[in-house]
């Protein structure tokens, strides 16, 4: 364990803008995809606030927000310095999808059980 490890230089986040030639297109793509993502987030949030019951709110949250997150990750990928970071972004999105899907299922089940309980008394 005491083996010396070659020290990896830390990449500053501010240097993440890539090379100067492709920068403008990358930035435009980033802004575009992020904006689309934000639209989905707004739609999801409006749904969360306006929809009448748990199930339709879940519908708004899981579908719109996860799509929005995907677009955000896509937009950020154009700012990533390398493929490792892009793979990490993809993994973040995939994990968020799995987690959100699971959570949505469980919330829906709990709400279903709750509904039964509410009708009893």
């Amino acid at each position: 364990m005491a083996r010396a490890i070659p020290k990896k230089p830390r990449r500053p986040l501010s240097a993440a803008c890539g090379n100067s030639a492709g920068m403008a297109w990358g930035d435009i793509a980033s802004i575009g995809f992020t904006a689309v993502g934000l639209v989905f987030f707004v739609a999801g949030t409006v749904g969360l606030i306006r929809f009448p019951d748990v199930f339709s709110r879940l519908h708004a949250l899981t579908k719109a927000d996860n799509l929005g997150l995907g677009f955000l990750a896509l937009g950020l990928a154009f700012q990533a310095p390398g493929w490792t970071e892009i793979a990490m972004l993809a993994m973040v999105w995939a994990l968020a999808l799995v987690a959100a899907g699971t959570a949505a299922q469980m919330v829906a089940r709990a709400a279903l059980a709750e509904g039964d309980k509410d009708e009893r008394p």
Partner: protein
Amino acid sequence: MMALAFDVVLAALLILAALAAVAGRGLFRAVIFFIVYGVLVALAWARLGAVDVALAEAAIGAGLTGVLLLAAHGRLRREGLEADPGAGGQGFAAIGGAGVALALGWAWFALPEPATATRAALDSALPDAGVGNPVTAVLLNFRSFDTLLESIVLLAALVALWMLARDGAWGERLGLPQHARPGGVLASFGRVLPPLGLLFGAFLVWSGADDNGGAFQGGTVLAASLLLAMMAGLYLPPRIGERLWQSALVLGPVVFIACGLVGALVWGGFLVLPPAYAKGVILAIETGLTISIAATLALLVIGPPEQAHNSGGAA
């Protein structure tokens, strides 16, 4: 300008979430807003550039604390004890809270200029610390005594928690039984995520030497993976006396104290680390500490043993 706007929005969200957690209607809502608050605090740490703290806050403040509070709410609700009677003595409390907030705000602007001496001393000592991440260097080398005592404090908290078990429940499995359906989504999720959590936790510990991460963050991720496996019904929580778990709980402090004693005998002082051996010793301590932190935090969140295991309801 944009950064300032971001800070203002973040500060407003923090205060709103905290307000909803403290004064919002309904206990369940308060717990949920407290979890949201934890995520926002992690964001604030990232904004400050303290990535190590942000990782710890995201994993602990938003993750494990959330599980803990939701589980507590569930326990109270099962027994009809979750009704929130609202607030009392509000005028007095509001004066107290506002007074403290104002005093802290005044103190912020009355702070003396930041001292640069400690920072310079830290930077000059860092090459001898054995690790490149200054936070890890402070935790496990320069101020390792604090960290050693803290790892023991965690154990003390766990022992105190177990003391709250009822006599009849002492030999039972820890925590409440979980009701995950065997083929359900939670069970599948509990199969998918823990291996990834294990990988990520180990990565955090390993990368904590020179980059962001460390034993606390990695240990917390491992604890969360363990908890998930337990909640998904894939791994039954242990009983108090199980040897394997007892060993895992004390491994970190034991390795820590052993390294400290080696320092006292060979290198001239308790917990003294000569530069040549520092990296190896720190990795050994961190490995032990990660296992102990993971075990301790998981068992702290699971809670004391309950009688309800293997029998019907709690009644």
